[in-house]
């Protein structure tokens, strides 16, 4: 098995400017080293604001690290699937899907032939020819997932898309991912659900406060995550309102 992605001591700093003289710096990722093999399904667990999304953007090659290196085994096609992003809301679902496919290097003819497949998998029905802004959050997520899956990219990066949508679609999407495992497609996916990670992934990691704290077998990582969450809950102080 060959290495698909290799991150070495990656740091990402953000500088957010508030006005002319004020700037606020935040380190979103600190010394992340990670190696993901071709064909792996890698899960990333972490709370909101832990740096997960930034990590995925680095892996997708969208942002360059401030420090450290990112290397790919070869020139892979990559797609990052994020809730509510990746679409032009004024265009129809079909036009958006078509555009995504062509952007991923498919010809127009190929893309046109794939459209019915996407419409069917996404279960959007007659809405396929309506503007995406009229879609519910679940429909958007389904369309995004169906398009990304059909465009057959080498590295598919999924950011919490599977947490929306109903149970039935989630099962279908999980099956689709599970079927990819045998192939050469590499899937990296972020979730808040340790069960999902344990079930689907071949390896997993927890990211907390911009650092990777655990990495290893998905069952162990999922267990550790649950433990961390419950201990965090115990440590929370409950402040009772004063009654006068």
């Amino acid at each position: 098995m060959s290495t698909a992605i290799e991150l070495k001591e990656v740091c990402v700093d953000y500088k957010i400017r508030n006005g002319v003289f004020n700037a606020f710096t935040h380190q979103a990722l600190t010394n992340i080293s990670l190696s993901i093999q071709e064909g792996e399904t890698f899960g990333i667990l972490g709370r909101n604001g832990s740096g997960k999304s930034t990590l995925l953007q680095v892996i997708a090659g969208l942002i360059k690290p401030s420090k450290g290196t990112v290397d790919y085994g070869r020139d892979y096609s990559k797609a990052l699937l994020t809730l509510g992003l990746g679409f032009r809301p004024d265009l129809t679902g079909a036009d958006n899907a078509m555009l995504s496919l062509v952007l991923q290097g498919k010809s127009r003819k190929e893309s046109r032939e794939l459209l019915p497949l996407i419409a069917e998998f996404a279960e959007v029905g007659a809405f396929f020819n309506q503007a995406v802004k009229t879609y519910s959050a679940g429909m958007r997520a389904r369309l995004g997932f169906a398009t990304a899956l059909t465009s057959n990219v080498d590295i598919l990066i999924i950011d919490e898309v599977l947490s929306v949508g109903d149970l039935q679609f989630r099962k279908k999407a999980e099956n689709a991912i599970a079927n990819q495992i045998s192939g050469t497609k590499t899937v990296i996916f972020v979730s808040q659900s340790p069960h999902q990670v344990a079930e689907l992934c071949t390896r997993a990691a927890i990211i907390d406060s911009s650092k990777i704290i655990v990495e290893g077998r998905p069952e162990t990582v999922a267990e550790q995550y649950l433990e961390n969450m419950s201990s965090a809950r115990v440590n929370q102080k409950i402040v009772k309102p004063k009654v006068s």
Partner: protein
Amino acid sequence: MGFLQAISIVDLQARASLKSESSKLALSYLWWILEPILFVSVYYIVFSFLLNRGTENYILFLMCGKIPYLWFSKSITSASNSLLQNKGLVASIQIPKTLFPYINLQEALYKQWVVFLLLIGVAVYFDEVPTWEWLWLIPIVILNYLLIVAISLWAALLVTLVQDLRFVVNMSMLFLMFMSGVFWDIRELQDEYWQHVLLYYNPLAFLIDSYRVILIDQGTLDYQHLLLITVLSTVLIVSAHFMYIYLNSLLTDKILRN
């Protein structure tokens, strides 16, 4: 990304946007022609009726100014926001960011060809006999497009880096409308120095004047100046493409954190 794939994407997305835009309007694609006609009518009413400034063939004169100006200003204004507008795509896949201004420009270009046909129709209607010189419209329109591309690429880049510049772009368009002889004739300026300055240093004024030279048959084309603007626009376009590559990470950062 190959050149052909890039063209295919620009064409595909421009068509999809046009389709979506027109589907929202009751008069749909008719607006491509209605809008310039309404603009020209407003100017005609103000200058010809109220101010009594209209010359012979004033409608054709106005159209030669307003149509290229509208194309120029709308293209640049829309392209300058194009990078920030495509946050969704920038956040999900690696694509050259120069595509975004080109997509918006292509949208405007598709609308424009009908309008140019209308312009020629009106010119013929006003008894301007088509001559071989009218073929010069082709290089003039191409040069007009090159100029639009050159300014749009730089405007989109700068607006993405410093969003405050959006106001500067809008103001410049208004300023250019007054300084390019859209509704008045630069050749009628008493001061020859200013006449020269405007026609020589303002490429839009020069282009608008060239449309009039060809369609209303006033004066002669300055071929040397045409060549100069072509070279300048090409240099600006090529250098902009290098800047987009050089500043790619910074642009991504600005767009994602918008």
